[in-house]
């Protein structure tokens, strides 16, 4: 059951001119959220901006005893709300509704979990990695961005046992080009091993990853991004076209049936 919390900002770390990690005191959400779920946030009062915005839960914050006390959000500044999240100061309060949506379905050993992140699509994978580690499931993080300056939290992931496979468009680190370059190479090499893909990032990346997964006979879960008016199934703004089995398609609300979908079921346009 989602709850709505007026969460206090307990930290705001700028990672780059456009990326920041916002820490919010939200114990109830921290305690119940699962990897891939999201929150709808509204910084600032008043009616401009009016609607909440969806953000993946990035990290779950715990106190010394391991009790969940809050969450963080990895935000990329692209507009009015992300600007407010960028400028948020300790002590400010931000309305935070969640956890919402369907989480990833994580695999158990001996199967491996390959996480594929593009840009801010890294967000759902911090909690995912912790859940995978709890299951002792081996993991790889495929992580692509424009340049090395746009790759964050690399130590965080590697120190927690995720093997890193990086790609940058300018070649400043890892493979040169899209993340699908190392991904396809490793899919080819992984013949016979049980591997499930989990992808989050720009839609073209999700489509490419889903297609690779089909080509190499792997299951692939993708987390899609849609403009969301409510996050609760009320407005029908966030639909994604899914195959209806009979060659046609039907629109499904990504806030309640997703944001995580089987990549093979989505009709990519």
């Amino acid at each position, binding site marked *: 059951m989602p709850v709505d919390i007026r969460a206090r900002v307990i930290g705001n770390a700028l990672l780059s001119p456009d990326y920041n990690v916002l820490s919010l005191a939200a114990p109830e959400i921290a305690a119940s959220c699962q990897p891939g779920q999201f929150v709808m946030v509204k910084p600032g009062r008043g009616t401009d901006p*009016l609607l909440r915005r969806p953000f993946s839960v990035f990290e779950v914050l715990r106190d010394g005893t391991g009790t969940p006390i809050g969450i963080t959000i990895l935000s990329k500044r692209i507009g009015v709300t992300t600007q407010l999240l960028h400028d948020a100061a300790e002590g400010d309060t931000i309305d935070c509704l969640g956890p919402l949506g369907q989480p990833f379905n994580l695999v158990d050993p001996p199967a491996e979990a390959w996480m594929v992140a593009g840009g801010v699509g890294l967000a759902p994978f911090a909690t995912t990695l912790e859940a995978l580690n709890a299951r002792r499931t081996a993991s790889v993080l495929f992580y692509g961005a424009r340049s090395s300056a746009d790759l964050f939290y690399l130590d965080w992931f590697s120190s927690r046992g995720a093997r890193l496979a990086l790609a940058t468009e300018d070649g400043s680190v890892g493979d040169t080009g899209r993340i699908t370059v190392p991904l396809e190479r490793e899919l080819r090499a992984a013949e016979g091993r049980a591997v499930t893909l989990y992808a989050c990032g720009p839609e073209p990346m999700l489509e490419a990853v889903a297609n690779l997964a089909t080509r190499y006979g792997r299951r692939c879960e993708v987390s899609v991004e849609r403009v969301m008016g409510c996050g609760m199934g009320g407005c029908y703004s966030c639909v994604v076209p899914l195959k209806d089995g009979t060659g046609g398609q039907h629109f499904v609300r990504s806030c309640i049936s997703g944001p995580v979908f089987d990549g093979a079921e989505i009709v990519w346009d």
Partner: protein
Amino acid sequence: MGLTPDLSVQIGSLRLANPLIAASGCFGYGLEYAGAIDLTTLGGFVTKGLFLKAREGHPPERIVETPSGMLNAIGLQGIGVHRFISERLPDLRRTGATTIVNICGTSIGEYAEVALALSQAEGVAAIEINISCPNIKEGGIQFGCSLGGTFDVVSAVRKATHLPIIPKLTPNVTDPASFAKASEEAGADAVSLVNTFLAMVLDVETRRPAISNGMGGLSGPAIRPIAVRMVYECAQSVKIPVIGMGGVASARDVLEFLIAGATAVQVGTANFVDPFIWTKLVTGLTDYLTRHNVARVTDLVGTVDFSKGGH
């Protein structure tokens, strides 16, 4: 005045525990919210608009935010009246919710057929007749923008059902009150307004409309002052109850509509921003009535004082 004020209101033969109703298209089929809130906190809710058959609706983008509002063109995606009756109504009955069904039609016959199916089902409290959706050519707006069309649709639905019927009026006309009168003459138990304002947002970088349908309906606090004026005009010109809506986001806004002449108030867009708004509205309403020593919420309806100044 120690006793808690009476919040109940009467819409035709239908009694609501309080005047707060979730607006059509802003509350799914109700069940989406049953997990988060107690649906009996609301006086009632209105379903997403239903045709006889299922509809896919418009492709994304379907909404875009505007200053203190939002533009939508969902395109009435829905499961059709028969699947609603078989797949949703049973669970809704169990929640104890007061379910008002918003019906659409591409012809007068379809409106009547949908109404008939609903009156034969169990658990429908009332029917809201959507003759005002601006987002699909065949969404009834051709009826809603003509007095004759409005009269004919409402008359046909009146013949098809004994359930309370509530034509939902468009604000995209010169004189909404005349449409309220036409509805009253055709046998409506109440009218509701406003539906959304036909509007447009462009992406100046692409020079394209921001939503796939090109135009859409504007809702939210931005439109409230216009909606309050229209509700006032309608309440002045008909005897049947007027259900007001348009930008309600707080108890103060609910009170504004009631004082302007609304017997009940619907909340749409604000439910997206705060799905837990309902208890806050009930509390705010109760506090106001207690503070002002008003015994019944109905005692507020239409009490606006125009004595100094006024139109």
